[in-house]
């Protein structure tokens, strides 16, 4: 029984360290030299996929739908506003509603490519065949998506994370003294911009939302600015 628990604790730690690993990889971000989008580009902003939870004292993330909805709506608004500010034409699509046919395949492929991009930013999973190659593509099947939704680019955003409860913050403090690492929660956000003519992922970024709380409009604005910094909009 004890053995089982130790193993379990290791497993928990590994799950969290996965996220931490990814976060650590962040400063390795390369500045990509990308041409800015042509003026008045039509940018299809995919409805951000946001899932937030409350990290309770016991370490159990409890889903908080109100936070998820607020985060999603705030991010969607901030993203659309940003696209508009840059003199482009934003439109919106909930990818969950476009999963049939070839567009569905493209969206699923983007999931996989996004996962590969993320894995490649993590030292332990970086592929030597991908070391100096930041060019990722979905192929020219994306033209279907562009034609169906009358867009030149698609912007995907995913956010996952948890916020620590007060009790958990206290536990983390105690843990710190005792030399045990207790994750405090955190939110990871991934964005990618896909050229809907070539299929190329022209730009992507991954940030850990530090002080910016996407549950609030201001926080979401700040997070979007940070996330989209360097985006060729």
């Amino acid at each position, binding site marked *: 029984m004890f053995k089982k628990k130790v193993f379990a604790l290791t497993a928990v730690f590994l799950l969290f*360290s996965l996220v931490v690993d990814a976060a650590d990889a962040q400063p390795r971000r390369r500045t990509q030299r990308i041409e800015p989008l042509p003026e008045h580009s039509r940018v299809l902003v995919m409805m951000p996929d946001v899932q937030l939870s409350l990290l309770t004292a016991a370490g159990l993330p409890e889903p908080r739908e109100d936070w998820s909805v607020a985060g999603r709506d705030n991010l969607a608004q901030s993203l659309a506003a940003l696209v508009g500010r840059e003199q482009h034409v934003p439109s919106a699509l909930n990818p969950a509603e476009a999963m049939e046919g070839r567009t569905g*395949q493209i969206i699923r492929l983007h*999931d996989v490519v996004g996962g590969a991009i993320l894995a490649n930013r*993590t030292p332990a*999973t970086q*592929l030597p*065949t991908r070391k100096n190659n930041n060019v990722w593509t979905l192929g020219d099947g994306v033209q279907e998506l562009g034609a169906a939704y009358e867009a030149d680019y698609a912007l995907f955003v995913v956010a996952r994370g948890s916020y620590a409860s007060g009790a958990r913050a206290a536990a983390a403090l105690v843990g710190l003294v005792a030399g045990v690492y207790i994750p405090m929660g955190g939110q990871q956000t991934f964005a990618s911009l896909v050229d809907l003519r070539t299929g190329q992922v022209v730009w992507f970024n991954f940030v850990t939302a530090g002080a910016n709380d996407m549950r609030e409009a201001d926080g979401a604005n700040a997070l979007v600015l940070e996330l989209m910094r360097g985006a060729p909009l």
Partner: protein
Amino acid sequence: MSISRRGLLAAVAGGCIASGCATIPLVKAGPYRARGAGFAVTLSRPWSDLTAMSFRPTGVRVLSIDGVQLNQLVIATIEPQGALVRMVDRDTPRPLYRSDMGETELVEFVIDSLATLEYQDPQSTNLRPQSLAGAPGVRFDINTRTEAGLNITGTALVARAGENLNLLMFLAPSEHYYGVFAQEIDAVFASAAT
């Protein structure tokens, strides 16, 4: 659950712990004989060797360029009673290779192994005779999809060599990725030699 997600997580969880976070090995372009393989192939470009984080039995190599979900080349030599997939424990049944398998049974062995890896409803198509490293074998194409519903196309070549089974298999999303690699993979299959 596709092996890819398993691969990603296992990479950090298992691979990292086991190997002290060693980096993923690179297989150079040119002639390549995987450890334990009964044949060699010629690769036209370098591949990443993801075997260590792919949860496969010994004798099975998994190579990739962009990640196992986007392209994976499996090179294997399987002994009698051996498997293409690794299971949780010794007792969990799995498709096993037998040295007296007929051609259709060899194809069935590969397809059923893919089902065990959570590829959905895998189907073999276009079975045809083709030799692998000089031995008469079966070439076939594969249609399947991931659990998330991403269509996957594949192709494989199997042939018996003595008691063992030699196997080459390539899998990639049907959208864009498979087509980009098809010719190169044909050449890899054709290059197999003892």
